[in-house]
């Protein structure tokens, strides 16, 4: 065994960052133990007790940060320390030497005249100003930052509209432009279907399903979550439809959003009506009639949206594997659950995935609670306490204020999962695992110990605990889709083939007396 030490003098990181770095450092391949802690006497005493104290560490001061790595060989220690240093650099925002750094958007635009898009992720206080600068430099904008006022959003979108530019965001987390995923997105095939989405994970899901059904994407244009509000008026969605209508490569357009404000829906559907290309409309929980009257193709679920899009784009519907619900499996699970096990608990990283599963459950059950419920009576008053069927969007501000998103740091979801697993009234726990750019490097791996523990505990108590997992990703994504699915299956998790099927399976598993 070899132990290596680095002391960072007078270095402070906040506790959340330190714990997150420490967790990641312990997951580095080959590392038996990694410690990142302040150099206090008491912490040195702990190191002594576990046989890791060295003279170098003894000399550390209370304001110093101690990094200790124990691994089988010197080489493994060295490479782990390099990996930890990289983690610190990422935390500190350092960039690799191969990247060119510009101080301002103006200088970047002047130096790269062929650039036509700026991705902006800065403090919300400065985001609108930077976005305006980019638009003034004739750059389309994807604005990842949130905390931009609605007045600023309207002004930016109107300005972009006048200049014929796209203003995606603020708070736009997903886009695929020119086959490059920006921020959170999946690796999908290039094709002839264009998407305009106001829902991040909803757009990811539809793009992934299109890929799964053999289709491909031209562009995925994000709008930001507030675009279809009364105030903003859907400026970006309308411009997005227009851009895709003018794009020769795009044959079919898909719109994804939560139901828009009525006046905005009217405007969007008017544009759908005048659009020369077929438009599939997936407004989660929305009504069919108005869409059909506008000549659009209504989709009730994300899977239906993808199927309709690929068929409209030229696929032969009869040849599609639509991945029908597995009814023998449903019967099998129903038989394993006791009469008391009648509730679904959905723990989601993706807001739209949560929404879709919730709406599908609401089609069948009354008592469906959530932190994102629109029905006031069924909105959870205490988000830490589940009631009846509960669907939690754990990426919502309720859970992420001051903490990383669960797609990056899964600890909050792990703790909640273990609690739900103890509840004897729970029949099925449904979870999403999101792969792709921007996500956790091993979303399944971090949940596995908890899944195994919960399954074992339930078995000890003579209960069957049904865990239903949905892995959102493609065969082109990193980490490897098949490996992620296999890990779950090996742990006894049932796999759903889509967000839609996940919601349907969950609700059918717990149905009684049918």
């Amino acid at each position, binding site marked *: 065994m070899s132990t290596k030490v680095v002391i960072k003098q007078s270095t*402070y*990181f*906040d*506790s*959340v960052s*330190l*714990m*997150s770095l*420490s*967790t990641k450092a*312990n997951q580095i391949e080959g590392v*038996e*133990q*990694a*410690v990142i*802690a*302040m150099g*206090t*006497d*008491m*912490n040195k*005493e*702990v*190191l002594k*007790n*576990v046989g*890791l104290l060295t003279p170098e560490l003894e000399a550390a001061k*209370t*304001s110093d940060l101690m990094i*200790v790595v124990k691994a089988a060989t010197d080489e493994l220690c060295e490479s782990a320390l390099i990996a930890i240093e990289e983690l610190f650099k990422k935390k500190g*925002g350092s960039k690799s030497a191969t990247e060119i750094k510009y101080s301002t958007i103006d200088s970047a635009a002047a130096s790269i005249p062929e650039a036509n898009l700026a991705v902006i992720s*800065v*403090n*919300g*206080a*400065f985001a609108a100003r930077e976005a305006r600068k980019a638009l003034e430099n004739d750059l389309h904008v994807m604005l990842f930052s949130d*905390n931009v006022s609605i007045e600023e959003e309207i002004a930016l979108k109107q300005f972009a509209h006048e200049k014929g530019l796209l203003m995606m965001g603020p708070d736009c987390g997903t886009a695929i432009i020119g086959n490059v995923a920006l921020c959170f997105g999946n690796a999908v095939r290039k094709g002839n279907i264009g998407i305009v989405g106001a829902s991040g994970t909803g757009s990811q899901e539809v793009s992934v399903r299109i890929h799964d059904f053999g289709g491909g994407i031209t562009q995925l244009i994000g709008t930001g979550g507030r675009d279809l509000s009364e105030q903003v008026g859907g400026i970006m969605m309308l411009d997005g439809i227009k851009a895709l209508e003018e794009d020769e490569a795009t044959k079919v357009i898909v719109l994804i959003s939560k139901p828009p404000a009525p006046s905005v829906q009217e405007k969007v559907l008017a544009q759908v009506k005048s659009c020369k290309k077929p438009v599939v409309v997936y407004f989660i929980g929305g009504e069919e009639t108005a869409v059909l009257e506008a000549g659009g193709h209504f989709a009730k679920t994300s899977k239906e949206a993808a199927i309709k899009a690929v068929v409209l784009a030229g696929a032969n519907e009869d040849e599609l594997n639509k991945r029908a619900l597995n009814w023998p499996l449903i019967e099998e699970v129903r038989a394993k659950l006791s009469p008391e096990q009648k509730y679904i608990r959905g723990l989601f990283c993706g807001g739209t995935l949560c929404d879709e599963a919730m709406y599908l459950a609401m089609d069948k059950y009354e008592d469906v609670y959530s932190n994102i419920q629109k029905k006031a009576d069924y909105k959870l008053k*205490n988000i*830490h306490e589940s009631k009846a069927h509960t669907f939690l969007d754990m990426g919502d501000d309720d859970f992420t*204020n*001051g*903490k990383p998103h669960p797609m990056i740091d899964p*600890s909050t979801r792990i*703790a909640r999962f273990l*609690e739900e697993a103890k509840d004897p009234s729970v029949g099925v726990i449904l979870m999403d695992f999101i792969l792709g750019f921007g996500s956790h490097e091993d979303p399944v791996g971090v949940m596995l*110990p908890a899944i195994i*523990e919960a399954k074992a505990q339930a078995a000890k108590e003579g209960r069957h605990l049904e865990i239903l997992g949905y892995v959102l990703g493609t065969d082109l994504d990193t980490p490897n889709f098949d490996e992620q699915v296999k890990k779950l299956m090996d742990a006894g998790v049932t796999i759903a083939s889509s967000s839609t099927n996940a919601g349907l399976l969950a609700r059918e598993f717990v149905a009684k007396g049918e």
Partner: protein
Amino acid sequence: MYIQALSGDAGFLERLARANFSGTVHSIFERTINLKCSENGELYTIGNHQLDNAPNTLIINVKGFSELGLSVNAPVITKEDSSLVMGANIRIWTQQATKWEGELPSYPCDIEGVDILRRNVAFTKNYVDVYGKTGGMKMSSQPANPFEKEMSRMLIQRAGMLSDDLANKRIESATQHAISLIGLGPGLTPSGDDFLVGLCSVYKMQNISSCLSCPFFDEIVRSSQALTNEISAITLKKAAHGQVRESLNDLLSCMVSGSTEELVPVLDKIIGIGSSSGTDILLGILCGLERNLEAGGNVCLPKS
């Protein structure tokens, strides 16, 4: 750049009003900046709008600090109009800031009040059991490595010994066990320090039933200078003088007079502090309150 201060510790604002503050930037985080004051050597904090009021702290109207372009050791001065200038061009206006003066609530002195407190302590214990974060005083069922396991073991053991000493009025031994917690634990503010912040906040409540003498607190303040980092030491020092952040005052007020429904959001806010810091503080508070409930009536104040 001009930024408006929203609220601030009354003492800090008065110091700024007297133009009696100069120093340097000590450390920069996403939601806080610490300043080292040249006049008294203490650390002062500038916090973003998501943070609550706290001793030596000014809350300003920004979301984060990493993009402000400030660097450690940048000079900080006060202008005659009470504004605080950090680095080359960040100026904080303080004239409109609301003054905040934290005050710990009184420990209940009647049976009804003690019953409410007893009920809320039991509720909080269960709540921490279920929702408290592991990694510090609350041991994880799956520690990441032997270091974390040993750390939690030592924290729990030492806090237990301190608790026993307090229950049995062994003040000298309690002082030594309190000191043995300082600087022990992961995170920027070690878990042992956080536990002591919670404990001190209880024993500094007005009319506390089982009071501790000044040397106990003096020794914590003195030892913290050498045993923990400056950022944690100032928090501990203030707590030892009965000055804690607003959310802790709110929690203790709710513990002595609130319903369990009112307690839940306040507990959530505390548990959300840092990584495991909030949980560690809560465990310190619970330890202090339980020892006082066990002590029964008021054993400090002269009986009337």
